């Protein structure tokens, strides 16, 4: 059924292209006799910059024909704060709070990727305990971000109640974060060579209790959202992407893995203690909206597995590398650190000229790369589908615009 619809749509497009301007004029002035010649005018809808489901400040022009979007012209930059320039005027440590403000749904992984790049630049070894804590908070962050994704995916499809359930679960993670680093959204927790402070007493037990509870609840939530017939009808088969397309458009993270490409930085370029932890890289093969949504739910389960193992394995010891001066001055050189953030491959490319400030910090935001594929992915689908496709790409505009 879907195939027939698409080909009809193609026909429509082609026949419209073949009409001469005069014919179009005639059609618009109502001087046509048979209904087959009626041409509807294309409508340009401005989606955003403020729109309930624009995920931030995103402006796009949708050219629609009836309900079908024929062309999308994205326009970004509304949240551009030029962090890369700011980084050149801050010391290495001072830039960490700024990374919080890029992907503000997943600040912890931003901190981590930046610190990893600087550690690679300066050749710093991170203590074991700090690495474990990083893995725990990083995976908690992935869960939190995916919970936000699931809630917004539901609410964009019109289900407003799951939205609250997922946010309620996320509150648990935010409270854990408040306990360990004192903030609920902009953590500024990971430091060059370790973490800011050790986990307080009982925190690891709280975390374990939380993930155990979440594991039970995810079963219900999956049935409520992803298993729902209407949800499936809205998501399955919409905006599919093949592996070749996904690679060509530079997708990373869940959107890429949903097409069958098993690219996960935790496996393909292992960092921290991930090689010692057992987990599966979730891969789906259809690459449609439903796969992009399901992959996140499955990754939550894998993250829970990782957290359980990391809590089991965590050694005692210091949480910060020794001998890092307050005014940190790495030798001239380059460093590239990347982590698998909830959105994809998040990389920081830091160039030092031997002073206290980085010479250049390049931020490779996965949302930027993923958002780029939106027009290719969703042209020819319905207005409602474009909104969902934007949602399943899960861009955060703090990171897209930086």
């Amino acid at each position, binding site marked *: 059924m879907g195939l027939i619809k698409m080909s009809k749509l193609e026909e429509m497009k082609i026949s419209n292209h073949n009409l001469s301007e005069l014919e179009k004029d005639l059609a618009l002035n109502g001087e046509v006799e048979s209904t087959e010649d009626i041409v509807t005018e294309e409508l340009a809808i401005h989606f955003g910059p403020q729109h309930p489901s624009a995920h931030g400040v995103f402006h796009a022009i949708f050219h629609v024909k009836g309900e079908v979007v024929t062309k999308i012209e994205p326009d970004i930059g509304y949240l551009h704060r*030029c962090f890369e320039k700011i980084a050149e005027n801050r010391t290495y440590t001072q830039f960490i709070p700024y990374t919080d403000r890029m992907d503000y749904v997943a600040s912890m992984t931003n901190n981590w990727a930046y610190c990893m790049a600087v550690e690679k630049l300066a050749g710093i070894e991170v203590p074991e305990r700090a690495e474990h804590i990083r893995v725990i908070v990083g995976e908690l962050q992935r869960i939190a971000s995916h919970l936000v994704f699931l809630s917004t995916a539901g609410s964009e499809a019109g289900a407003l109640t799951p939205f609250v359930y997922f946010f309620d679960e996320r509150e648990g993670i935010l409270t854990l974060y408040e306990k360990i680093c004192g903030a609920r959204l902009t953590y500024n927790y990971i430091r060059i060579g370790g973490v800011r402070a050790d986990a307080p007493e009982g925190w690891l037990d709280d975390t374990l209790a939380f993930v155990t509870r979440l594991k039970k609840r995810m079963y219900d939530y999956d049935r409520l959202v992803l298993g729902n017939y209407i949800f499936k009808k809205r998501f399955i088969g919409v905006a599919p992407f093949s592996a070749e397309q996904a690679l060509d458009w*530079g997708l990373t993270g869940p959107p890429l893995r949903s097409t069958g490409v098993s690219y996960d930085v935790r496996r393909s370029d292992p960092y921290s203690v991930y090689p010692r932890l057992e987990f599966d890289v979730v891969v789906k093969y259809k690459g449609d909206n439903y796969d992009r949504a399901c992959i996140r739910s499955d990754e939550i389960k894998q993250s829970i597995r990782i957290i359980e193992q990391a809590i089991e394995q965590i050694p005692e010891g210091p949480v910060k590398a020794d001998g890092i001066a307050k005014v940190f001055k790495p030798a001239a050189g380059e460093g590239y650190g990347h982590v698998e953030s909830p959105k994809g491959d998040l990389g920081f490319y830091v160039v030092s000229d031997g002073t206290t400030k980085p010479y250049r910090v390049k931020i490779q935001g996965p949302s930027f790369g993923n958002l780029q594929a939106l027009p290719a992915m969703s042209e020819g689908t319905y207005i409602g589908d474009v909104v969902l496709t934007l949602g399943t790409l899960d861009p955060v505009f703090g990171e897209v615009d930086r």
Partner: protein
Amino acid sequence: MSDENIMNQGNSEEISAGIKIVEEKGIGYTLTVEREDLFKAASALKEAGFDLFLFVSGIDYPESIKLTYRVYSSKRQNKLAVMLKTEVPKSDPTVDSLVPLWSAANWHERETYDLYGVIFKGHPDLRRIFLPQDWVGYPLRKDYSDDHMTVMDDGKKDKDKAAAKDKPAAAAPKESAEKQDAPEQPSDIADANEVSTNGSDKNE
């Protein structure tokens, strides 16, 4: 891909004739080429299985802008990612666009054009991406100054603006918001000194 596999990689590999990737501290495998050879090298990399384009970054040096591309391979067994480096002189910052090879390069190249002014030949739609189309200058260059911008802040700057209006060529408001944020920044202070040679007394 297991852990050992990555540990056992060699230090360099010849991708195709004359194109050799070497390991560099901090950033992994690197391939440095002249800008004329960029497209050829990139094609060779694509042939060799590097099918995922991750980013392009500019770095501003006094004489030139260094470009660093990162590509990843979903097919290869080892040496999965390569940094491709090239350099363009500031007098003529043009380089071949890689959009024909990877569609993903589109926005990344637009970003580099926007912030560094590097012109990518053969790019289908080379416009500014973050900044407004009528923006002046390329902000990530080290010699960029936003003195031509008007800064609105609590009326104090209005006076500055009025002063700047009187003598638009000579005195621009020197104290931008960026400088207030980071007074210890050396290059900006140097800029400010240069400007203040004409009419520093008009401000404040």
